[in-house]
């Protein structure tokens, strides 16, 4: 199967990952325990794009707002819409990141990195520039690592007997969202 078909046919995996991560973050008030790394902060905020159906018949809903609790988005889940894009805050220790993740290709959009001591470099000092580059890369790779570990956790549950129990909990969480309207 070529990549374009694979993206379309397996789109559900990224969408379910975002839905699962949203449920998982709310299960313990914004904290998710990674198997090898312990607790990290995972908070859904500001912006979510949900999709229903495929191709020409698909419907999209955008929910955003500064102090939003994503109520409309939660209601969307109950109408069988699935998250297509979500703005997420992730933190481990002192490092806090924000990123918009897309379900189809797992692109990282508008990534905000923690503020560091690194200063802007005008390109005239090769050593300073290299240090600045390596510092940025280290932060980007930490964010990628955390998203990868969350995804690994999801995939391992998704392919195991545990998924049936997890699915019941997710469904319960989705219907609780409707009761909060």
């Amino acid at each position, binding site marked *: 199967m070529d990549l374009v078909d694979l993206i379309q046919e397996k789109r559900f*995996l990224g969408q379910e990952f975002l839905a699962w991560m949203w449920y998982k973050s709310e299960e313990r008030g914004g904290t998710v325990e990674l198997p090898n790394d312990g607790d990290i902060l995972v908070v859904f905020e500001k912006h979510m794009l949900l999709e229903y159906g495929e191709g020409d018949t698909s419907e999209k809903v955008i929910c955003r707002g500064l102090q939003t609790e994503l109520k409309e988005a939660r209601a969307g889940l109950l109408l069988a819409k699935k998250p297509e894009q979500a703005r997420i805050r992730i933190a481990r220790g002192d490092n806090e990141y924000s990123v918009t993740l897309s379900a189809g290709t*797992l*692109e990282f959009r508008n990534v905000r990195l923690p503020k560091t001591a690194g200063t802007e470099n005008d390109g005239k000092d090769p050593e300073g520039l290299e240090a600045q580059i390596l510092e940025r890369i280290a932060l980007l790779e930490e964010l990628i690592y955390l998203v990868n570990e969350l995804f690994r956790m999801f995939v391992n549950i998704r392919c195991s007997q545990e998924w049936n129990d997890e699915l019941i909990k997710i469904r319960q969480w989705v219907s609780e969202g409707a009761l909060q309207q």
Partner: protein
Amino acid sequence: MGLLAGSASFTRFAVQGELPENFWDFVADRVVANSFKDIDDTIDEFSIGWVSVANMFDSDFAYGSYAAADYVVLTMRTDERKISSSVLKKYTMKEEERIKLEKELPRLSRAVKLEIKERIRAELVRQSPPIPATFDLCWNLAENSLLFFSTSKKAIALLEDLFKETFGLTLVLQIPWLLGQQMVDESQAAQYEDMRPAVLL
């Protein structure tokens, strides 16, 4: 905004293919061979190549600035002379009217109209300055992975071609399905392949 500063958007790739033993010599040769060539003083419509991440005018890599520890960091630069369709239409119609008046013709043949359009297009292209665009990348040699700081499909297609042309290596977009395939163990592989969409309500 990309690798060096500000908020970043990026797409992830796996790099497939064998790296040569004398890797850094190979990179030095190939990057210079595919570095960006300026088209400001030519009439070329398009140019693509590598420049330093620190400076879009540095295509000589004076400081060897594509090497940072175990990473190759580069900027793909494109310069393109673009003509908007409405501008082309306007000047083509103007020229058609001029020729009709000059030759006292009620209308022009399809072939003549086509010739006018092509000529006007070539003239406008020559007059318009090339529009530059830059996209950073960071290639992790230890993990054979690459971050490309754009989510534009057009830029991604250009990168895949330029990377292949430069290094003879293939970039594979890391979509969730392919990423997950690498994360499940053998006992879960069959279940992974059989996965179907779940109903979440």
